[in-house]
Every structure is written in C-alpha cells, then in structure tokens.
C-alpha cells in the first residue's frame, strides 16, 4: 500500500455562470490596475490523502466517494481528479 495525494477540483460546467468569479474579476481585480486579466473562474478543491495499492485504484476510489457522497452535483459541476505521489 502506498500513500497518494488526490486533488479533486469541482467547478461549474462550461456554459454555466460563475457569479463569484465575475464579482472578483469586476469588483476587485479590474478596479485595480490589472487589465491583463481577462477572466476568473472559481473552483473548490478537496485534497484527499489515501492509502491504495496504485494510482489507478486511488483515483477510482476517490471517484466512487465523490459520487456516493454527492461531493458535487453532475447537473451543474464537473470534477477533475488528479493523483500525486505523496
């Protein structure tokens, strides 16, 4: 068994608006002098520490947990799962 770090990033699917990102962009960043920024999207991340035999089963396990615990709603969000060695 090896320990892995698994990052789960949850964000709105494309085409679905992200009011928080828009507010941060328009009311904070663009009010300063930072005109090279053209977009901000927010996401939520969960960082799991998991003991599994390999990367594949770590990823599989985490996907299972996300679905089972309804960590995200597939109607609105998508997840990206990245596995790293710890």
């Amino acid at each position, binding site marked *: 068994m090896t320990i892995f770090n698994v990052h789960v990033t949850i964000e709105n699917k494309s*085409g*679905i*608006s*992200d*009011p928080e990102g828009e507010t941060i962009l*328009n009311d904070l960043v663009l009010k300063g002098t930072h005109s090279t920024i053209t977009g901000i999207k927010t996401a939520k991340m969960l960082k799991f520490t998991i003991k599994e035999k390999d990367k594949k089963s770590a990823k599989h396990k985490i996907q299972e947990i996300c679905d089972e615990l309804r960590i995200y709603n597939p109607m*609105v969000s998508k997840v990206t799962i990245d596995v790293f060695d710890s």
Partner: protein
Amino acid sequence: MSLEPQELDDLTSKIGRKPTPTELQIVAAEWSEHCSYKSSKIHLKMLPMKGPLVISEKGYDSGVLDVGDGYVITAHIESHNHPSAVEPYGGAATGVGGVIRDILSTGTRPIAILDGLRFGDIEKDLQARWLFKNAVTGIADYGNCLGIPTIGGEVEFDECYSNYALVDVAAIGFGKKKDLIKNHANRGDLVVLLGGSTGRDGIGGSQFASDSLESEDRSAVQIPDPFIEKLIIETILEARNQNLINAMKDLGGGGLSCAVSETADALSIGIEMDVDKVHTRESDMSPDEIMVSESQERMLIITNNEKLKKLEKICNKFHVKCSVIGHVTSDSMMHVKKGKKTCANLPTTVVANAHLLDRPSKKPSYLENIEQEKKLSPISNYSKMMMRLLSSPNIASKIWIYGQYDHEVGIRTVIKPGKDASVLRLDNGKFLAAKIDGNPKHCYINPREGAIGCFEEACRNVVCTGAKPIGMLDHLQFGNPENPEIFWTFLESLKGLTDFAKYFEIPCVGGKVSLYNETPSGPIKPTPLIGILGLIEKKPLHSQKITSGDYLVIIGETKNELGGSEYFEYIHKFVGGKCPIVNFKESKTNMNAVLDVIGKDFLKAVHDCSKGGLAVAVSELCMINQIGCDVSLEKVPGPKLDADRTLFSESHSRYLVVLDKKNLKKLEEYLRKNKVSYNLIGQFGGENIRFSSGHKPIIDLRVDKAQKTWFNSLKELVHG
C-alpha cells in the same frame, strides 16, 4: 420545446399563416402549463379574490392588501419543484429570487420570506436527505444575502416525494399605497431590460416544469446570484422613489417571451423589440434562445425617454446593467426583431392567452376503501412510543432549518419562528402575522377536507398570535392533470378551499398551480399549501413564560379523526382512516373566541393542536418552557375515545390556552357565554409531561429528555 399538434393548428389558424421558428418557441413557452394555467384557469375563477382590503391593479403578479394609514402589504407564492429536484441548492435559491421579484414588481419592498418544503423519507433515504440539506442551504444563502428575513415555513417528509422535492416560497412586501406602480404605457415609451445578463441557463424551464421528471439531461439549471438581486431591489426602489417606472414585470418562467407578451396584453399595447439589444452572457445566442432563456435576476421596465437618463444613473450607481430593448407601439402586436430582420410578429392576445382546457375528472378508485381502518397492533409502552414520535422528522423541532435563516434582519420580526405563526411589525403601528401550512397525508385521504384543513390550520396559527386572517395564498401542487383521477383531486381541493374562503370571507390574494409533479414511482400526494396573512391592530400575544401552577385549557372538540395522522402513519405505518373534517361553524366560533380572549390580555400563551395531536401540542408547550404538565385525558371535550385516540387525533379547530390560575373564571365566563366547547384539562408544574386517563397513567416523560430529543433529532439526522 414544442406545441401539441392541436395547439399548432390553433396557432396557425389564429394568425392565418405558418408560425416562424422563433414564434413557435415564444408560443410554446407562453402556452406551457406553467405560464398559461391552461388546465386550471377556468376553475381558479371560483376562488373569491375580492374583499374590502384587496387592491387590484392590472398586471400585478402579487396580491395587494390595504393595511390602513396609507400602507399596503403585498404577497405572493411560487414553487420551484422540478429545478429543486435535480439541483436543490440552485433550484431552491432561485425560487426565492423569483417570488421576491414578484413582490418588487408592484413597487413594494420585500420584507419577509416563508418556505414550504417536501422531501422523501429522510430517515432512510440518502437522496432525500441530500435534497433537504441543500434546498435549505439554498434558501438560506439567497434570503440571507438579500437581507430579507425568512420568518417561517413548514416542512414535511413523505415517501410520495422520493427522488423529488417540492420547494415553495412565499414572500411578503410592504410599502406606501401611493408608491404602488400603476402599470401604464403610452406609445413610444421605452422597454428596458434590467439586471443580470441573459444566458443559456434555464432555457426551457417552464416547459420543464410542465413535464414529468424523467430524463437526466436537463439544461434547466439556474445559478443563483443573490448579490445582483439585492442590487436590483435597491435600484428599482430608488427608481420607484423618483417615479421613473411606468410599468414593470419580473422575468420568470418563459423569460422574455412571457414578460413581453403578458405586459403588452395586460396594458393593451404592442411591443417592438430587438434581441440584439439584450445584454447576453454569450455572444452567439439565437433569437429563440434569448426569448425563452430563464436566466434569473432580470426585470422588465417600461419608462420613457425623459426618465431613462435618471434610470440609467441609478443603474450605474449600483452597477446593474440595463438595456433599452424596444418600445411601446399601439398595434397590440409583439414584434421581435434581430436588427432589421423580423423573427416574430404576433398578436399579444394570441400569445398571452392559450386555449384553456376543461379536463375530465373522475373520483380515484384508491379512495373507495381508504377510510376503513386496519386493526392496530397494541402499543406496549406509550412513553417510549411518544419519545419516538417526538424525534420523528415531521414532529421534531425545525430549529435546524430556521436557525440557518436570518429571521431577524429588517428588525420587524416581533414573534420569531419556533412556535405557530411569526409576526412582523409594520410602520403604522399594526402587526402582520403569517404562516403557511400543508398536509398531504390528510389531502391524500380526502382531498377536499384535507385542503380545508390546511386552510384552517394556517388560520389557527395566525390566530394564536392574536391576528385576524385577512388574506390567503394558495399553492396547488398535483400530479399529471391529464389523468382524470388526479384532476379530480385538484378540483376537490379547490372547491374545498373556495367554500372555506367564502364562509370566512378571506379573499385569495395570490396563488400558483404546479402540475405534473410526478416521481419515478408515480404522482405525489395532493399537496395544496395555504398561506395566511393575519392583521393585528393593537399588539400580538407574546408568549409569557409558563410557571408552576398555570392552567391548561383546551378549546374545541377532539374527535375520532386519525386518518393521515402522524400516529397512524409513523407509528403504525398505516395510511387510511377518517381524515379530520373542519366544521365551519365550530371553527368560526373557536377562532373568534380565541381572538376575543387574547384581546382581553390575560392569557400567557396560545398554541393550536396540529400534527401529532393533543399529545404533541402539550409537549411542545412543556418543552419550550421547560416545565412539566399533568393532563387528564378524560376531561378532553368531544366523544368518548380510547386514550391513544384522544392523544393523537388531529381534529381541527383546537387551541391550547395557558393562563394563570386566577384568570380561569374570566375565561370560563366568556367561553360559556359564547357556547364554546372547552375544558380545563391540566396544570403545569414539575419535571414530567404526564397524560393520564381516569388516574391511570398513560404517558410519563421527563421534560428535559423529551426536549433534547425533540430539539436535536433533525440536526442529528441530517449530519449523520
């Protein structure tokens, strides 16, 4: 989105040509059940809508009641069932947003929200738990951010809502009568779209709400943006103060299609608009998409050239986008263009008035034997069973819900959630009580009497605070109306509500119909929901702390009415029996008596008996006040019943009254004189809640233990 074949024929013959694709989309949105009320409209007319306090004005989406001294309150109710069933957080949140805009569109400031929630069995069903938790968070996040207090509501769990959710939201507004928007428009006036940008989210929402929920592929997810909504509220109210709004309508189901056609139809004008002028979120949206998008947080305003500059200035201050999308014409046509090109050009009366249906109805066969009772298995330990009942999700304290809602912002909430109705203070020194109630378990067994019962319960709740009911909101939620058996239950409920409203002279000031509420395993139980507004001229009854020695008096009779009760359904797992029936005359006598006695200012507390019957109502008084009580069941007025029936019958028109010993005479004198059925049934004191029947103890619970269970069980259930 599409029209039925006969609707397409109807449209073609009315306009004398083949409709364009954009026209088809517009009409399909507007003729959907959700927007057109095509199944219900001819029947809804039976409800009494007028009254001495009702102010009606064309094009209003909310009811308006005159509360005196130049002030009005407005009220409306909406649901967001289908969206909440797939995305509970966003669905519930945008439900709040929608009804708030209805209130705003009359030119009044929203001052309160109430929510009615329904889910499957959260004890067993994880999906139901997820829906519940997220719907509550959605309402909390939206209402709290707006700074509008959510002052109360109700919630019920029943297997008939498995894999589904009903999220109803009612809102109340307050303002000066002179500030009400008097919807009007003249040729050449400008049509302005104000608020969030129009995007692809929520396309087909109203159609969605008119379908049964089956496919997973729904584009109807709407992302709530309470921050924009808050800015819109302030923008509109400032514009109202400066008299910049000639007419106004919120964008809800059906998006621009409905807002434009209904405004034009209500004001007998035409509107010409250009989709290119609409501020959109994505650059490549088609005219059809723009017309039917149900993006949230948008308002349609009619103003004129002179006022526009000032309006734009206010919008700039709040960073709210506004676009002039068209102007008012005199030809009664809804003319939608993209630049120079015409996409749709339809008579507004055609768009705004779908062909109304008179659907067949038939008494459902399940009702044949529903009143027959099965033999109940004996209860060996009533105290234990009572504890179980107190922890059941339908009975347990709802503090986990209203504790997440800012119910005090606005500093009007004089009586806060946790008891019966909540009460708001108004600027003219009067008070407004409000509560919503439903009871699908009763309504399933008897759609007519069940609906009347919800109405009476909501009245009882406001009466407990000393308020006289002045207006009613109804929300009628049923399954597929094309099924005659379902449609019969709809009609029965409606007739019951109408009878009660007429007898009590409580006008219906607003309502909503939500049909096609079907879950994978069938239709929901009939779920009418009734909201009652009550006015208090002098001061509300603030419950005082109950102390040892205080008397407990019950008003009203306890009958053998356990059909649909929590006792039958939760403890005995039995659906059936006789549902409680409201006796109108008795109801009125008791209601008036309670109001009169409250006015005499010697009562400590009043609480009605509802879910869980007498046993639960008494326990609630004890648990809230952390004091015991001894109740003698044989003293309870009504026909002689077994102890469990007296304890748990859910008969209506019953009130518990708490008073100091020394005031009993005064109370009895009044009640006897007015021929009210009542009796002294108990006395407070000690640390135990005790019910006995002829000195035989039936239930004996420690108050503190009961209180802990009742208070925490919902939270523990949700947080696992």
